[in-house]
């Protein structure tokens, strides 16, 4: 199978999920005895193309234009469509990033194809590639196959594969080839302006050894101090899933997940968090995960080492009491 991997960079810095998808692509190439080309797209990114060439792939395609310096869905789709038409891959793989979800469906549709997005795994069975993605917020998984003609477009979720398993190039380096694409300024309808961060990150959650995280199950802002008290007794920081920060019950910089911070503490204690994929990608690397949830089928229990099916408003106060008792003792 001929695979085209589209990597992602911003301002000359890799989006590291690219290398997770590279690991997936290498694995599929091995199983299907295929070939792999990696695309680096942007402006002034030759050094990144050279770095990618050190990985196990057959060639690196460098797509550079002034008009591709800043990401736009029009610019990237038009340029990558020409790369797909030139390379004629069977499968186009992308990391499932915010940028990819912004242009990849359009890119696929522009060549009359569909995209299977946000995959967490794949299986290669009897010559058929089956992609696994989550549905119902992670409560079910789905096996999805392409039905039409190639090229097929698929993206893999962050954390689905391990970047450190991506193989280095066996014989030194893969060749880097520049690809010319036609692109005119008037074809790009979006005008990208400045990038910025909202607030200074007051607290660096990535450095906290223990995180107590609250989700919808905390029910009301008045209940946040309960979790804060537990965090204090355990020597940890408090954080939350997205809905809690959307509600303003905790500041945005305490959000864990795909749109917040990615953490891997010693202990991650999830209180009333169902475990939607957007949250789990931000914490599943934690050493120990404990969770309290009233729903025994909550997907958070799929990643938890210790689970309690029950009412957090009964169990957390009991834990606080226990911790205070042992502390005093």
């Amino acid at each position, binding site marked *: 199978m001929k695979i085209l991997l589209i990597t992602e960079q911003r301002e000359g810095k890799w989006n590291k999920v690219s290398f997770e998808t590279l690991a997936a692509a290498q694995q599929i190439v091995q199983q299907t005895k295929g070939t792999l080309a990696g695309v680096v797209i942007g402006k002034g990114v030759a050094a990144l193309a050279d770095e990618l060439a050190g990985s196990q792939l057959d060639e690196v395609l460098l797509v550079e234009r002034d008009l591709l310096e800043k990401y736009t*869905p029009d610019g990237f789709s038009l340029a990558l469509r020409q790369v797909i038409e030139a390379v004629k891959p069977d499968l186009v793989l992308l990391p499932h990033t*915010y940028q990819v*979800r*912004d*242009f990849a*469906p*359009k890119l*696929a*549709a522009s060549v009359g194809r*569909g*995209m*299977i*997005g946000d995959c967490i795994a794949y299986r290669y069975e009897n010559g058929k590639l*089956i992609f696994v993605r*989550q*549905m*119902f*917020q992670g*409560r*079910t998984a*789905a*096996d*999805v*196959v*392409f*039905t*039409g003609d190639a090229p097929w477009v698929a993206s893999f979720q962050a954390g689905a594969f391990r970047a450190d398993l991506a193989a280095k190039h066996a014989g030194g380096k893969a060749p880097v080839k520049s690809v010319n694409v036609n692109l005119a300024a008037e074809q790009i*309808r*979006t005008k990208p*302006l*400045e*990038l*910025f*961060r*909202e607030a200074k990150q007051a607290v660096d959650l990535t450095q906290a050894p*223990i995180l107590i995280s609250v989700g919808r199950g905390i029910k009301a802002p008045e209940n946040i101090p309960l979790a804060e008290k537990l965090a204090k007794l355990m020597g940890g920081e408090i954080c939350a899933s997205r809905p809690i*920060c959307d509600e303003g019950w905790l500041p945005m*910089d305490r959000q864990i997940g795909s*749109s917040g*911070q*990615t953490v891997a503490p*010693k*202990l991650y204690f999830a209180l009333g968090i169902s475990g939607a994929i957007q949250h789990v990608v931000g914490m599943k690397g934690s*050493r120990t*995960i404990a969770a309290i949830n009233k*729903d025994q*089928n909550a997907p958070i229990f*799929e*990643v938890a*080492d*210790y*689970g*309690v099916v029950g*009412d957090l408003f009964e*169990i957390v106060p*009991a834990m606080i*009491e*226990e*911790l205070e008792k*042992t502390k005093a003792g």
Partner: protein
Amino acid sequence: MKIGVCVKQVPAKDAPLAIIEGSAWIRESDIGFETNEPDGFALEEALRLKEKHQGEVVAISMGPERAKQTIKEALAKGADRGIHIADDQFYKLDPLGSARSIAAAIKNENFDLILTGLQSDDQGFGQTGVLLAELLGRPHATIIMQIEVTDGRMKLKRELEAGWFQWVELPLPAVLSIQSGINKPRYATLKGIMAAKKKEIVTVPRASLGVPDAPTQHVERIYVPQKTKKTEFITGQPKEIAAKLIEKLRHEARVL
């Protein structure tokens, strides 16, 4: 400003999901349905834009007869009329098939702006907005946290990953996918609910749209995912659970 907003009806958040054996869908007969939460933010944004710039908000939903309820709720909150694309088996559509159907149903509406939510809480493809833009030949932007409209152009705040944002400008007409949390969706008022009864919902059978049945992908089956970790469940009275859990975290996991 003429605004179309896509609203999907999905199984209620706490609905027990019973997978139909050997199929790719769930048993719908015993569960409740609700408006897809991310779409509620798109609807609210549409209503606020209308309040600011005048015009019309049209709620568009595809699905079986029950999907009309989601349109009615949008009308009760202030949308002006509804378009129901009727298809009992719409869950079988792939993202491109869904988008082609919606695009075909609304192509003569000539909306200035089409809004969608970020993704649906059931299938979660998250592609409808981007695909609608491509099919209708409009520019788009996704994961939008703020919209400012001036003289036929929009200035938009896009959310990027890891706490980053970006301002982008787009001309109208366009398609936007709204990030959840952009606003606080309103509740329908009694007056709104009464007024909604007089508002028009046009039903368009999906089969009448002439969209070719050419799926690009097929969901073979859905299933409860296998656990990647073995979870040790701790049971008992709250006091026992608390003591056992702290003991485990201290002496077994050694993280406390």
